[in-house]
């Protein structure tokens, strides 16, 4: 029994590892084409991500929003909905936290911080309701509606930050949040690891419990696995999808809110919710497993952190990392083939040959 589990785990890990290695090799080819030494580039990348304690904790810190957006994508994808709207939901959450963090005064930290967190999650969740409803009521592909809402969110937040909520002064940003809304550091400067990292890890456990130990999680997986069967079993498909999507949005909103309260301190007009999109490769590479999400977040965060060093010291554009992520995803999408169909096709080829041989013999 245990042996079987080990074997299963190994086969689960194999594909992601193959995907990462092949993607890095293809990345190396592009680096080579650009006339740089790939080994030099990758070692700079590794140094930048793990070379010093500060680098290591930067990698952890940058993994925080990825863990949350990765969880967000995971839970929706278990319900067969791809939430590409993490960017908009993150922005909504960041805005909510920036406003509640700056304009509520005189609160003790243990009340003020939870308020910013709840506000962020609520705004993120609300921003996800519309695409969920469009999917349920009108069968509009959530990929399209969430993307549209991303662009709306980007423009809306830019407007709010540069207009009605702009703090006086040169920078285009909201008022700095109150001291009582700031998330404390787990590790102080120079490491600067925020409490947000711990909160993200708690979310991992919570989502794992929801997915594996609750009726809701069972329903989500059932709807994702076979919508018709779930319907016949008497499950409320609409409600399950809606809840899964709202949780997804709330997690992305939390990611945005803690970017403001844990590191930025205010919302700038240049705030990017790009981490919302990055949650997709993170979740898919992890097979939508919450604990796997932690590992893949660390991987992508390391790539990201290290890429900056690679760019400055070797002169390789850090955007290559994005391309590498794309290749990883393509491999994951093709996984079914490698796992289930590769040998089938070979079998078919042999079978056809046998048939042909028989025919020829006859």
């Amino acid at each position, binding site marked *: 029994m245990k042996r079987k589990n080990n074997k299963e785990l190994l086969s689960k890990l194999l594909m992601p590892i193959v995907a990462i290695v092949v993607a890095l090799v293809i990345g190396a080819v*592009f680096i080579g084409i*650009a*006339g740089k030494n790939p080994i030099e580039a990758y070692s700079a990348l590794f140094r930048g991500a793990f070379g010093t304690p500060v680098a290591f904790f930067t990698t952890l810190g940058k993994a925080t929003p990825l863990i949350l957006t990765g969880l967000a994508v995971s839970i929706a994808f278990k319900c067969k909905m*791809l939430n*590409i709207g993490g960017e908009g939901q993150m922005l909504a959450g960041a805005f909510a936290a920036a406003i509640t963090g700056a304009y509520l005064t005189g609160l003790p930290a243990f009340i003020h911080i939870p308020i910013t967190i709840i506000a962020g999650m609520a705004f993120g969740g609300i921003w996800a309701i*519309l695409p969920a409803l*469009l999917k349920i*009521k*009108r*069968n*509009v*592909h959530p*990929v*399209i*509606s969430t*993307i*549209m*809402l*991303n*662009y*709306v969110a*980007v*423009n*809306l937040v*830019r*407007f709010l930050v*540069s*207009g009605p909520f702009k703090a006086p002064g040169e920078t285009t940003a909201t008022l700095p949040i109150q001291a009582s809304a700031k998330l404390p550091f787990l590790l102080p400067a120079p490491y600067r690891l925020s409490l947000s990292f711990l909160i993200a890890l708690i979310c991992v456990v919570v989502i794992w419990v929801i997915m594996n130990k609750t009726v809701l999680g069972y329903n989500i997986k059932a709807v994702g696995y076979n919508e018709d069967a779930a319907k016949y079993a008497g499950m409320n498909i609409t409600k399950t999808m809606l809840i899964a999507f709202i949780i997804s949005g709330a997690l992305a909103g939390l990611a945005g809110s803690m970017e403001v309260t844990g590191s930025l301190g205010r919302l700038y007009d240049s705030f990017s919710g790009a981490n919302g999109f990055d949650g*997709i*490769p993170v979740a*898919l590479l992890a097979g939508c497993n919450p604990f796997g999400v932690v590992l893949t977040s660390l991987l992508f965060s390391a790539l990201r952190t290290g890429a900056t060093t690679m760019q400055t010291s070797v002169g390789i*554009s850090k*955007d*290559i*990392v*994005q*391309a*590498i*992520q*794309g*290749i*990883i*995803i*393509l491999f*994951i*999408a*093709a*996984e*079914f*083939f*490698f796992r289930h*169909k590769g040998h089938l096709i070979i079998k*078919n080829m042999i079978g*056809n040959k046998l048939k042909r041989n028989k025919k020829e013999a006859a």
Partner: protein
Amino acid sequence: MKEFSIFVLIITTIRMATPLMLASVGGVFSEKAGVSNIGIEGMIIAGAFMGMAGSYYTGNPWIGVLAAMVIGAAMATIHGFVSITCGGNQSVSSTGLILLGTGLSAFGLRSMFGRAGNSDPVKALPTTEILRDIPVVGNVLADFSPFLYIAIILIAIVYYILYHTPLGLRIKTVGENPKVAETVGINVWGIRYFAVITSGIFAGLAGAYLSLGQMNMFQEGMSAGRGFLALGAVIMGRWTPHGAVLASLFFGLFEALQLQLQMMPNVPIPYELLQSMPYIASLIVLATAFGKSRGPAANGVPYLKRS
């Protein structure tokens, strides 16, 4: 251009709609055969980059157009391999292509010019001089990019194929019921590859329009969600080429409105909100009357061959 002009609005609408028409009609073609190509966005940005690069290295913008078509076709082939041959999730594969297209074009930009943001200006194809001598309307027609005329011709061909040829019937059968299609001897995978690669070429052209028709350089993020708007246009147009063209003009109208309002003094609507108008309009349309339309039955569903 301080005053609101209907004439300018119409011209700008057509200009803004050109890349959407190309991308969305390509999308219709692909979805008719049952492959949803959400990765169009990635193919547009890659096409825009390759268009610029082709023109930059050869000095001939038409080589750039060709390069854009090739990269679109190549990315669509990858999408085809993953989602047709491997039976992978088409949304996931498309997401990979979007990351790949965005990442590689930004990487390429920095490798070529040593900076982010935008490329050097290159030789572009902004006007169609052949039409200049036509009486009365010649000047107006010639001011449009040749891409517009290429688009019109290609869209007419797609329309003809879909509705007046046996190939079109095969494509639609494959998209509605691949099992039946295979039973009657249609090569399901072949048709799907053909359709998705066509949509990739169209998306590549749409990208080339951005860098060589509308502008004369490549800018990071210049696709600006047009691939997704195009997919919205596919749905709004109820999976028909003519519907997609109309929907593209609709989006184009909003983009044109936004551009014209931006240039006018004392417009009470802030610039950022004007910019989100096409997206909001599309959401409203998707949420109301048009949303209920039904796409090809087997769209987005991988088909695993029996033999």
